[in-house]
């Protein structure tokens, strides 16, 4: 086990965490401001990926696709907020779970209707093709480095947005007291739509960036949705800071589990069995970590104020 390999795996954990943060930030913002649990967040991720793939294929430019993914997901988010979510603010979580579950069915089947059942093609832009050499003898894909950079930029941007701007002030006020902010004369309806669209755009961005590395297909949002939920629950629901650290934690734990557990099992077992056992344990690891964290800190690591 060489040092460059360890560095590379650490970068992989970081990159996975950053990607999860893009998803989780939107989810947790929406929950923090609106108190809504949005199962259809994974569908917005999918919308972003499909928009990017479709526009990139038509125009030949990944960057146009990326812009399209932001726009499409934000529009889809705003649409969802104004037609469905808006009616759910006063409802309990049960109705929210159900309605957004229904949205998943509609988005998935609707996308299949529009784009067919075969995966779409979306490639890394020429600028970011291939691997770059990093100090320490590490070769790392340029695109993944770019994703890390993008995610950190988004995290900083979100921090500035929430801490420094009027919109951010309203978001913070909305988190604390919905009635008060309404009493202060802030138009809570448009605030909600903006926040929802922002969260959706982040999900769409995540879908598009990841779509270039994976396969753009119906249902791609669901595994990552569940991971994003794990992230925000660990981080403390409603806390963007918690989502950031939770995402990094899950990214590192998952990568480390996939890397180390088969090796540890290999100390006791023949390689084939060790691979099976190790990968089986690795797939359960993050859920076990989540259970332990919640058993100790029921409100998550960075619970926002009571």
């Amino acid at each position, binding site marked *: 086990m060489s040092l460059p390999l360890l560095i590379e795996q650490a970068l992989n954990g970081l990159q996975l965490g950053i990607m999860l943060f893009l998803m989780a930030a939107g989810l947790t913002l929406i*929950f923090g401001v609106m108190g809504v*649990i949005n*199962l259809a967040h994974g569908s917005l991720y999918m919308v972003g990926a499909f928009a990017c793939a479709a526009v990139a294929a038509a125009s030949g430019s990944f960057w146009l696709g990326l812009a399209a993914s932001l726009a499409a997901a934000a529009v889809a988010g705003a649409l969802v907020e104004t037609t*469905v979510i808006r*009616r*759910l603010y006063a409802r*309990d*979580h*049960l*109705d929210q*779970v*159900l*309605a957004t*579950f*229904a*949205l*998943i*069915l*509609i988005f*998935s*089947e*609707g996308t*299949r*209707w529009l784009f067919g059942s075969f995966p779409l093609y979306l490639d890394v832009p020429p600028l970011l093709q291939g691997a770059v050499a990093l100090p320490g003898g590490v070769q790392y894909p340029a695109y993944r480095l770019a994703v890390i950079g993008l995610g950190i930029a988004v995290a900083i941007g979100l921090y500035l947005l929430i801490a420094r701007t009027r919109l951010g002030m309203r978001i913070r006020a909305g988190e604390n007291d919905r009635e008060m902010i309404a009493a202060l004369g802030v138009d809570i309806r448009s605030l909600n739509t903006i926040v929802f669209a922002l969260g959706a755009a982040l999900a769409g961005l995540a879908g598009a960036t990841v779509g270039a590395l994976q396969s753009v297909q119906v249902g791609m949002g*669901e595994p990552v949705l*569940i991971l994003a*939920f*794990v992230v*925000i*629950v660990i981080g403390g*629901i409603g806390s963007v800071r918690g989502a950031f650290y939770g995402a990094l934690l899950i990214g590192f734990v998952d990568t480390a589990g996939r890397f180390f557990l088969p090796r540890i099992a290999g100390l006791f077992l023949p390689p084939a*069995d060790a691979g*099976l*056992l190790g*990968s*089986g*344990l690795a*797939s*359960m690891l993050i*859920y*076990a970590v*989540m*259970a332990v964290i*919640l*058993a100790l800190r*029921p*409100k*998550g690591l960075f619970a926002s104020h009571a």
Partner: protein
Amino acid sequence: MPERHAIPVRSLLASLAIVLFPLAYALLANLSGETFHVTLATRIAILGLAATGLNLALGLGGLVSLGHAAFFGIGGYVAGIVASHAMGGEPLPFGLPASAQMASVWALAMLAAGLFALVVGAISLRTSGVAFIMITLAFAQLVFYLAIAWPGYGGEDGMALILRNPFFGLATMRPMTFFLIAFGALLAGLAAFAIIKASRFGAALQAARQNPDRLAALGVRPDRIQLVAFVISGAITALAGALYADLNRFVSPSMLSWHMSGELIVLVVLGGVGRLAGPLAGATLYVLLEHFLGGVTERWQFFLGLALLLVVLMGRGGLMSLLAPKGAGHG
């Protein structure tokens, strides 16, 4: 005191009609030789039972569990594993006898799921609201991945039971016989729900849903009440899972997937949360929709989604509130 406990006639009649519907459907189908529709009625009864289990936690206790597929699947896997051991003549772990008799399979399924619910509930009930929803989901995912990764018992492929487990001397492969067994289990589940709802425990449970602080101020720990309800709920859903495995003669991780959890919630809400016959009404509607809509269009999930959305946005209270609007509240 009849004047104080006016019997809600309409609600009773609606419930009766919903409970008898699968029976009538199955009998009619059997009479006209349409055995497949007997199977359809069996599916309604079993999913209705699974959702009735969830209704106890969700409807009475207000515990929105997005992880009940775990209990459903555990029940199914117990049935499958016991059957495979019984066929191969191998004893089960812990020296349990590998009897494939449904009655003992059921007891084992409910025990296993009950124990798991105890662990999951004890940790999950430390949280509430969205965190509870998510942590129950996470535990179900844990079991889901375990079933896939476990070296025995088929993994992702699942395991087939060539024959149904025996139930005393009955020919369980005959659709009508198996329907009657499932229907009997459904009735038992509904009876358990009704009795618990009317009991002291039921009163405390419903109080815990409406206002846990109030209940605590009366000296009753809401989390203990909810934990016990969660365990009973998981056990009932596991019973349904065991039956479901026998119905399909097949168990696979898809019984444990989070879509299954979502569907169980859908059944409860579609029918009417907290209402005795609600989950069964939901299951009836869902299975018939799936069957008839699925026959018309491949896009049936799209329309199912739309229908669900409308139910949530427009018709609060589900099917039961259409058939029998809830009167004045009572304990």
